[in-house]
């Protein structure tokens, strides 16, 4: 599981862009296109390669008025799944 002090970032070859035909946002990676829902897009919009996971959760908690622990669990699960597929890197 990604720790609060760790910094997630999208590696080279992975990017998030609007899907101008279908609407919404997609994550594009080698051989894969993943449609993002509003939550996923909001999480990835915070991943800038410098914010720690803890900071990201705090910002999302403030933006959505949700408890930080809940956010950490949801965002952590989402980011871990991306990490397992090598769509996300994490540095300490």
């Amino acid at each position, binding site marked *: 599981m990604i720790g609060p002090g760790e910094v997630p970032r999208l590696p080279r*070859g*992975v990017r998030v*862009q609007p*899907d101008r*035909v279908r609407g919404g946002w997609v994550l*594009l990676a080698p*051989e894969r*296109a993943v449609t993002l829902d509003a939550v996923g897009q909001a999480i990835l919009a915070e991943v800038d390669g410098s914010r720690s996971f803890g900071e990201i959760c705090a910002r999302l908690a403030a933006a959505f008025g949700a408890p930080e622990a809940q956010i950490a669990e949801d965002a952590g699960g989402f980011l871990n799944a991306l*990490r397992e597929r*090598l769509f996300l890197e994490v540095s300490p």
Partner: protein
Amino acid sequence: MTRPPIAMLAELTHRCPLACPYCSNPLDLVRGAAEMGTEDWARIFREAADLGVLQLHLSGGEPAARRDLVDLVAAARAAGLYTNLITSGIGLTAARLAALDAAGLDHVQLSLQGTDAAMADAIGGLEGAFARKLEVARQIGEIGFPLTLNAVLHRRNLHQLPRAIEMALELGARRLEVATVQFHGWALRNRDALMPSREQAREAGQIVAEARARLRGRLVIDYVPADYHGDYPKRCMGGWGSTGLNVAPDGTVLPCHAAQTIPGLEFWSARAVPLARIWAENPAFNAYRGTEWMAEPCRSCERKTKDFGGCRCQAMALAGDAGATDPTCVKSPLHADLAARAEAHAAADAAFVFRPAPGRETAGQGA
């Protein structure tokens, strides 16, 4: 309204310095002189993006045989497409790779004909190709392109799978495609030389499963299992006319790379007709779209939206009817016969029929 496609495969050229006996190009190769120019391709990339395509695969033949490859990559990126180069590496140099980097190339997929020079050069039919490829792989790593290694496996080289997995790690690949040869195009002619045994196919599945567990989070492994030894067919192209399309070097737009083996289908050219119209209206795309065209046993099968009845071109090649259930399915009346034929192909031995250069009739023969 027809749902838009996600991926487009652009066969920029059928020219290739290699001559792999399983090449997925059609037997009737498009000559260099009939290839579309830069402007046509760039326009088609824009039309594709407007239609909803997100991923573009620049393929061939060998795409590096196109002198305008860098311009084509730049055009694809300008259209907003995620741009993937599918290459054997032959024809790429450090300077060209740097130019592709500057043009915005997103990802490189490097094919592997074997894990040593003796095997790889014999399969590709070009001496020195393996050494050249390793050099290109090193340069790809230096630039930092995300890399997928695509190991094409068959009876002659399946024993090299463990080494291919090691090579993927050594070369810093993020993904490895373990693709057992699919019997279309030139491979169909080479079944006696290429068909793996059932035992080989089973072992490959085990090796992949073990490697996936061991390398979780380090290397993603995509696996295309052997064609004739399974119980259910593959969901080819994600379903005919549903997620992807191919454009041949001369601009002919195809539902899949082997679609021209199905007689009676009429294909339109992106030179003459807008891509969106081809996708929605070309009868060839509509012929096997969805599930309405199906006969039994597919029609009443609970898997019909999972695999869409398998591959139409395979049904054509093996059952003589593109509308039939893919004979690689256990429910096909032809399946038992196919399994027996697979054993016979696997037990047979034959020299390779190499694919020739476009415009040359005769393929070379070799070991």
